[in-house]
């Protein structure tokens, strides 16, 4: 940084500033060109089940599995699940493995135009249900642990209400459940959105369309981020970390039209999970059916899923054993921050171990 000095106007400052920026940009170019492709997804895993475009992976244990019931992680449809396993020192999944959990992750894949008619019914009663059944059958467990993240948390909540007998413990992380809040911009925008016009036009909503919405949440911070990164271009680790995050941000799958329409209309606009009346397939969803232990984690500074959208879940379920966990941080920090690796993953593993029998 070039500090301004007091006194007569000094043109050294602006000239140097422009020169410095030019030099940093060339440096950025050379660094990024030298680095080439970036690897994401650090932990060894095996594809154990596939159906249509979805893939179910089992992660290779990193320690003796001490919590016998497996954990299935369901991530959101709007981003890729490798956020949970970006790199060895920033891997939420790895921390869970090290704590003795047997971890599976469902990858929803990339919908194409042909997937326009995939609905919530397909995602819950076929994709998620088949994955759960596969794990139950192959591991000989009547019920498994389900961990849902963000929109995947909403899915997991609905699923647990539809199939309570198959879920031993439910963990939700930054999951929107009460959509009546006006705290987040996405919640405000979605309430009045003409989702029918959007789905009718696009069929499958392109990832880029959704990305524009996300970028509008913090447009000026985006610029600051790219200016700030110029300062650390000589630090290979930091640049690689930055690129992994960039990779994740840019990798935004399209959304199957019918599912998107239902999610926006039934949940964002009519708040049916809380108000009642949500039907998946031909089944009514009643959150009181959730009687298994619940660990509901929210992020106190979450601007995408504000706490008010997540915390009411504990009052809506029928579980006697339920806990609300406040994580100090934002929506993404929940998985990638040092605090998350150090505190949150062990806390979840501890909670599951305590309920393993």
């Amino acid at each position, binding site marked *: 940084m070039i500090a301004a000095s007091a006194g007569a106007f000094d043109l050294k400052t602006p000239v140097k500033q422009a020169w410095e920026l030019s030099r940093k940009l060339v440096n950025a170019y050379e660094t*990024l060109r030298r680095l080439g492709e970036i690897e994401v997804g650090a932990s060894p895993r095996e594809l154990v089940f596939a159906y*249509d475009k979805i893939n179910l992976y089992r992660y290779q244990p990193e320690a003796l599995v001490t919590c016998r019931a497996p954990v299935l992680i369901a991530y959101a449809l709007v981003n890729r699940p490798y956020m949970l396993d970006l790199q060895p020192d920033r891997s939420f999944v790895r921390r869970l493995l090290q704590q003795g959990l047997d971890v599976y992750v469902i990858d929803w894949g990339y919908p194409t135009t042909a997937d326009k*008619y995939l609905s919530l019914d397909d995602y819950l009663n076929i994709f998620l249900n088949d994955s759960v059944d596969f794990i139950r059958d192959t591991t000989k467990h009547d019920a498994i642990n389900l961990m849902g993240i963000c929109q995947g948390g909403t899915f997991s909540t609905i699923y647990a209400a539809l199939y309570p007998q198959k879920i031993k413990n439910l963990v939700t992380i930054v999951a929107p459940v009460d959509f009546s809040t006006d705290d987040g911009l996405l919640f405000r925008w979605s309430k009045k959105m003409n989702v029918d016009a959007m789905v009718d036009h696009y069929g499958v909503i392109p990832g880029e369309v959704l990305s524009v919405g996300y970028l509008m949440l913090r*447009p000026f911070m985006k610029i600051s*981020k790219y200016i700030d990164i110029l300062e650390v271009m000589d630090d290979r680790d930091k640049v690689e970390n930055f690129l992994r995050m960039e990779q994740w941000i840019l990798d935004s799958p399209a959304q199957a039209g019918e599912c998107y329409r239902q999610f926006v209309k039934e949940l964002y606009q009519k708040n049916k999970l809380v108000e009642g009346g949500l039907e998946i397939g031909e089944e009514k969803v009643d959150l009181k059916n959730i009687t298994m232990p619940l660990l509901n984690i929210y992020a106190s500074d979450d601007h995408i899923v504000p706490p008010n959208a997540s915390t009411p879940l504990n009052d809506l379920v029928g579980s006697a054993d339920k806990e609300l966990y406040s994580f100090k941080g934002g929506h993404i920090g929940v998985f990638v921050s040092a605090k998350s690796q150090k505190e949150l993953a062990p806390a979840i593993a501890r909670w599951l171990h305590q309920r393993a029998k």
Partner: protein
Amino acid sequence: MDSIANVQKAFWNIGGAAPRESDTTKKAHDLYEAWTGMGQSWANSMRDAFEEMMRATSQGVGREALANIFSSAETYMKLFEFWLPLYKSLQEKTFDPASYQRLFDSAQYKAILDKVFDFISPGTVNEFYENILDAYQRGLSPMFKIPAMGKYREHVELALNLLRKYPAFMAQYGQYQGRLYATGQQAMEKVMAQFIRRMKENSAPPSYDEFFKIWAEVNEQAFHELFTAEELVALQNELQNTGLAIKKDFQKLMALASYPIVLRSEMDELYKTIHDLKNRVHDLEKERQK
């Protein structure tokens, strides 16, 4: 690839002098006078170097990141150019609210906001839709020469509908941009107030990087408030609806044109059938497993 040489060349083009202390001191006045267009000429010269760099960078996340870095750097420099006269007047203690009004170049500031929000100019939007209409009219010109009756009636009605919606879209687009520009301008006044307060506390003007930080924070807050406002959400939805309605009409027109291509509605039917069949097969497999 000689990007460094290109950047150096671009840099010399800005001020005509290397950043050597003695030279810059001597040429201070000339340089300042030349500064008005400096950001622009810097951006223009750098853009050539950037394009060369982008061409030499293979596809992937690094390339995307580089494009975003260049774009942000351009905004950073545009703001720098905007800030410099203010900085000069502050440093020479000639700054007052009236001079701020004089120095505030709204066209220049609009260009900064266009870059932040990736706005395309109304001219470009215009051109885009004119091209669509032109292509359509050229393809279907015989239709316009016949009376709007019988099987052509629907064509003509759709085409007229399209023509009616387009100005409405442009008006909404202009209104939306206007709200953003107004918010940006108000935010800039708050930035200046904070900047002056900071200067009084520290006796010297904050550096450009400090100014940039204040600018980003104040704007982020101001635009968050704007995007939260019911009125803007409604306008945003109207804009989206009109845009989608235009596209929908256009698709309908294309469908009526009888081109030898598979229509979207036909593909939708196929997708629906495949979806239903997949589910049927899935159910049968489940039953068989039982």
